[in-house]
């Protein structure tokens, strides 16, 4: 899922400085699961903002709502009208939601409350780690299911760099060297031949370097 983190309070307060009527809009998708923008967080942020503005002598009127998803047009339908009642809508969805509101609800002044970070997994309660970078050309079949694009600091293709020591990445001892894990896994599975073959230079277009990406499924088009 998409992992996001709430922006610093000061940054949000600054962002809504001229706003008098605000809708804090959460999303029950990924951001609710990663405890960044679900119903609960909407409640907490809205209260914090009210307090912050009251303290600053500029009380603000804040409504709270949480949609099932902000990235599907059906769910955004009510916002087209309702959104106009507010000076701004502070979206607690990931960047996709904010963008989609901006696209679909042109009369709504949408602001981001979160910093959308990465595609990750929940390692344990309160801890998430990046697992995929959405590179568009998955190579996991060659790397024992471990992603070198997202999980190697240098997105290497041909094995661990010279900075890999004791299974740790050169950039930080707290970061595991994924290539070290890939080597161990492939060797354990007797697939070390994969480590000997030269992986050719990548085509980065599918990863977004070829411009904004789009997915079409002809059979599902209206």
């Amino acid at each position: 899922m998409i992992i996001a983190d709430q922006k610093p309070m000061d940054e949000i307060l600054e962002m809504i400085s001229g706003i008098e009527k605000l809708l804090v809009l959460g999303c029950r998708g990924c951001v609710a699961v990663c405890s960044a923008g679900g119903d609960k967080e909407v409640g907490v942020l809205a209260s914090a903002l009210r307090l912050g503005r009251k303290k600053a002598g500029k009380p603000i009127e804040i409504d709270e709502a949480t949609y099932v998803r902000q990235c599907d047009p059906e769910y955004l339908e009510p916002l087209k009208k309702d959104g106009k009642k507010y000076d701004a809508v502070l979206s607690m969805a990931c960047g996709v939601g904010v963008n989609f509101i901006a696209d679909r609800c042109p009369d709504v002044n949408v602001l981001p409350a979160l910093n959308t970070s990465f595609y990750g997994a929940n390692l344990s309660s309160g801890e998430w780690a990046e697992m995929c970078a959405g590179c568009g050309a998955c190579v996991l079949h060659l790397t024992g299911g471990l992603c070198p694009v997202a999980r190697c600091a240098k997105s290497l293709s041909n094995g661990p760099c010279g900075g890999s020591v004791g299974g740790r990445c050169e950039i930080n001892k707290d970061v595991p060297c994924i290539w070290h894990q890939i080597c161990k896994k492939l060797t354990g599975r007797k697939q070390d031949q994969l480590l000997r073959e030269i992986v050719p230079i990548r085509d980065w277009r599918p990863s977004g370097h070829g411009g904004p990406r789009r997915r079409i499924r002809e059979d599902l088009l209206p």
Partner: protein
Amino acid sequence: MISGSNLEQVLTSGQFTVTGELGPPQNGNFDVVRDKARILKSHVDAVNITDCQTAIVRMSSLTAGLIALAEGVEPVMQMTCRDRNRIGIQSDILGASALGIKNLLCLTGDHQKFGNHPQAKGVFDMDSIQLLGMIKAMRDDKKFQCGDEIKSHEPRLLLGAAANPFADPFEYRPIRVAKKVEAGASFIQTQIIYNVEKFARFMEIVRDLGLHEKVYILAGVTPPKSVGMARYMKKFVPGLDVTDDVIERLKGAKDPKEEGINICVDIIKQVREIPGVAGVHVMAIGWEQAVPEIVSLAGLSPRPGAKTVEPRLRSSESIELIVSNAKKDAKAEIEKALEQAKAEAQASRDLVVKEKVRVTSEISGLKRQAEEAKTIAGQKQTEIERLNAELAKTKAGLGHAQAVRGLAEKRESSALSSRERSALTSLRSGLEALSKGLGINKDQLEALRRFFEAEFLLHMDTAEQVTVPSEETAAPRKEIEKPEAEARHKEVVNLVAKGNVLLHKNDAAGALDAFEKALAIEPKDQKAGEGLKKAREAYEIAAPTEEAAAPAVPEGVPPCPEGLSPEEWQQKRVIRFVARGNVLLHKSDADGALKAFKQALELEPDDKKAKAGLLKAESGEVAPVLVPAEPEVTEKTEVPPTPEPKAAPVTEKVKAEARKVAPAPTEPTGIEGLSVAELPKETMSLSERAGPVPGNQFTESCTGAICEVSLGEGEKALTVGGSSTLPFYMFEGDMPHAPQVAFGILDSEPEDWPDVLSKYYSDVFSDPVAWARKCIDDYGAEAICLSLVSTDPNGMNRPSDEAARKAQSVIEGIDVPVILWGCGNAEKDTETLREVTNLVGNRKVCLGPLSDANYRSLGATAMAFQLPVVASTPIDVNLAKQLNILLENLGLSPDQILMDPSIGAVGYGIEYSYSVMERIRLAALTQQDEKLQVPFICNLGREVWKTKECRLPSDALLGDQERRGVLMEAVTASTLLLAGGELMVMMHPKAIALTEALIRGMMG
């Protein structure tokens, strides 16, 4: 030769090679580079020019390399993948090649996080191996990475790469070297070696792989300048193994610098002994001065002359130097010539003295020689002037080049205050409704006829019920103004009622008398005739088996109904007794069962089932009902769930086992395996699971509630609906009745059922009564939905009266609630269903489907008999609501209606059904839409079993056919349950067992 560089020449010559390293400054100071180059010059064969090492911004490696080159020091330009993409890299390579760079070291590069711009976006378009391959292709295949051709002047570069024998995983390191060699590396420079022993092991693997024959390996060494530096490297440089020995040596040394040099020299000497090491790479960044001494102490000097080091661009200073040298040379030559001339002149003079005679003849020769010397001096002067002019031009060119460089209430039929009252109410309202002039006379008349009949039936019914005195029942009749024959009729009715009451009280004689009196008044009265028959029977039986007749058969043995021959009736009774026996067996009441089976055998001594049952009852066995309705279920399931099952008596298990040993011969095959695992119950409350999230964040209580609709009568009656929350949302509201499953059966042999379904019922296909019984007795059915498919005008087109009698036999043959489902033809269904109600008017059967085409006629019938109905509409919220409104306008109460929204099987539009049901339920619960507050009935079995997925045979791809069908049905049911379905009509016993297990699990 690849590039013809000095490094290449030395390497290929077999000499032990020495390379140095030069770190460009963090500024634009030309002199720094030049000075370092001068220090290294002639002590090393080539010098690596680092490319922003440790990711700190420095003068570019290309530029610094060119400065070194101008100093006559051959550069090994370093290129990392961190800062440039393939476009930038290739571009720089072309430039480097143009300016005389001949060696390139390909690196991935240190991560930007190490340097002074950790905020930078690392490029890493490729890795070092891919970089090698790209440049090799530019060189050897004359192709850019994209594949375009390099028409001429491809970069001729000797490619090198780095290797770190101290990085992990150790075993992988030589493999990586092999990849680099394969990609294009001609030489390898290693990480700084202090742990020689580990390096030797690394080299051993390298040799085993034969790599030393394919690539020149230069061992990396660095003189540690101080203990501090050694410790820093050990601690902070990833992949650098500084041994304790080295640290100790430095600690103990008087002059750490000198010791550092000694350590370095010792390491060089040791690595030199390792086979396959082609040279050393001395890295003394920031301490270049130590290099000459190290090289010398290691016995590696002098270096072979660097003849091929030729700059294409020179520094002005070097140009000046060249010019002044040329000047000097010219001057010396002139002087030399003059000397010679002078000497010669002197010699001439001597000759004049000595040989005066030949003086004149030789003077011209001497003059010529002097003139020749003068001409040479003049030519030298012109040469000096030409060189001076060239110097001025080159200076001007350089100046220009520098300038050019520049990024979802119950109602008043309430609680059925009494059935009579409600019947009367409906009679009244029905008449009202009719008097409203529904338009068609025929319909009105028809309805009136039905009401009269209803009256009779009701009368009889109430008498039997004993709940209301007959005077009260007589009351409504006064309202119907039919003076003629009415008094006589009234008398008959009263007598019949009295008879029934007496019969019920087991006063057979009294009843006999009452009925005879009634018949005396009205000899043709059917009810009285029937009563008489019953009373006689009871009178006869009362004497011998009084105790057996009364308590064991509380409802009494009904008289032979019209339309049935006495033989058929007897058969039916046998079936009933057998069924009762089975049920009692199931309830572990062996004595009761024994009695029931004996009664059956008295009537039919040859009945196999009864015999089998008797055997079982005698042996104390439990009936093989695999899908029981009540909590006994736990003993039958394969997976014992929660702790309760332990309470099951041990004897039950013993009995169960005995059953296995001696299976009843009449048991249908294929029942085994119908048992299903129980769904584990959720023991944690939702609020516990929600943790700190407050309940009001996730709960939304509904303000509306669904009406309760009851089906059937007596002990086996079922009630569905009543919920005040979304399906199974018990944390938000109340769901008083669990959803129910009715077994769908047909009134004729199914034509197109797949074997995997028909095998469970094929033995009873010809007899709907036996079929229904089988469902109840063998599979634990709690409701039966009888489809009157035989009446379809497009199919068998069985006459309505015939079909109605069949239906009657089923209804009277069983005690669980019955839903009668017509063939779907509005006219035919009206005819058939009305006929059935005529026959079984005292039984509460549910009629369906009612559509907008027949709701008036069937609605009136239902209202008269107070029967529940199924309102069927094509999938649409508004159509469903509209039909409910029409039925209520007609006078039906909402607690008489079941809604059939039209459903599809999974994969056949279930999503559409789901969303319509969901919307209906939401409107009912959250928007208090009363017209929609009625339970759903989902006739899904027939939909599922006609799909192609249930018909295709078993195969590897689609799997077992039966299992597939069962899952299709069960999944369809679970989906509809979640959408709010309250009554599921299903067919496959296993699918039903699964669905019931799911319901139990969900109800918690």
